[in-house]
């Protein structure tokens, strides 16, 4: 095998096996602080 093929196989193995150890459940979601200069609609009561 030439060096390019060896590197390609190593890269593929790294990515494919990497998924086995990655988190399988999402972290607790925090709402992002969104920067916005747009005016928000105002609630109108009767």
């Amino acid at each position, binding site marked *: 095998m030439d*060096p390019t093929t060896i590197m390609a196989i190593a890269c593929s193995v790294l990515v494919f096996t990497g998924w086995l150890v990655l988190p399988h459940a999402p972290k607790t979601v925090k709402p992002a602080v969104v920067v916005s200069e747009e005016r928000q609609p105002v609630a109108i009561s009767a």
Partner: protein
Amino acid sequence: MKIDSGDTAWVLMSAALVMLMTPALGFFYGGLVRRKNVLSTIMHSFFILCLISVQWVLWGYSLAFGPDKAHIIGGLDWVGLNHVGLTPNADYAPTIPHQAYMLFQMMFAVITPALISGAFAERQRFKAFVLFSLLWATFVYDPIAHWVWGAGGWLHNLGTLDFAGGTVVHISSGVSALVAALVLGRRIGFGQGKFEPHNATMTVLGACLLWFGWFGFNAGSAVTSGTLATSAFVVTNTATAMAALTWMTVSWWHKRQPSVLGAAAGAVAGLVAITPASGFVNVMGAIVIGFGAGVVCYAAIQLRERIRVDDALDVWAVHGIGGTWGALATGLFATVAINTAGANGLFYGNPKQALIQLVAIGASWGWSIIGTFAILKLVNLIVPLRVGEDEEALGLDLSQHGEPAYADVSAF
């Protein structure tokens, strides 16, 4: 020279595919900005499609591909497409009409300044953008295109391998984007919270259309419809997929979640990186190039965030760094088994090719920095580069174009 109908059909079709990439870029970028700036962001791409289409036939093609002047620039002999007719040109494409080649190259010239627009999104004055784009295409893009692709260009003579534009398109636009971001400064509110993309689905759709169009970009650069185009098509798809997988995996490890936008950005990084190599590497080389793109471009974004540069849509990280990696990787993984008109790279026994690629990378970075900085300063003397603070707060859709992208924005 005899015109080949198959080659001509493929190049014309490829030109149409590359043309689609510019509005696709508009959607890719448009989804990433806030809703008050989406129309202006899409307008950048649409406007440049019109502007460079005219600039290219008037003088752009002549400067880039016209008869060589001192190995630096093309002459003005082909201004207005004079001498650019329907018979083939032996230097560039001996089996298709010269105008078909000119048209194909036009689409590259169109998308390159459009790429830069992601850096100054949400704050550049439209009139300044118009002037900048015209000057940049003429004084930065056209000379670099001549150096690398023009008959007689000094990087071409040196033996630079750039199949579809790693230096000409991606390094030039990515590095110029960094310069533009630094000169224009940060957006109001940068660093105080996250500028959330207003429509991630639009961005993913744009990335998919870019991927589709990129087959014309790379496989079309064979300028024939045979084996080389097929090989370029295969490695383009492979590197893109590998880069998307790698980026998603790295971001999953780093941020603890697999990002959809990350996968889309990774695909674009892979497309960028394989561009210069697509006519010179085999499929194993494409996997390594895709993997490298996913890692280095992701790392470049982390660096850009750390040094607090407001390259709004990460043009430098994806195109500047992705293009640099691709151009270097071409000098590592190129093999004449794929393209006898190319050269072997470092891993095939020719370390000199890697050095040649480094020279091309350095020249492209250098001219892009100098040219872009000078043009931005010149334009700023004529018209302010940035909109005013009140215009930026209102959004460029309304302040620059008088039109909201979505009807409900104007009601607020």
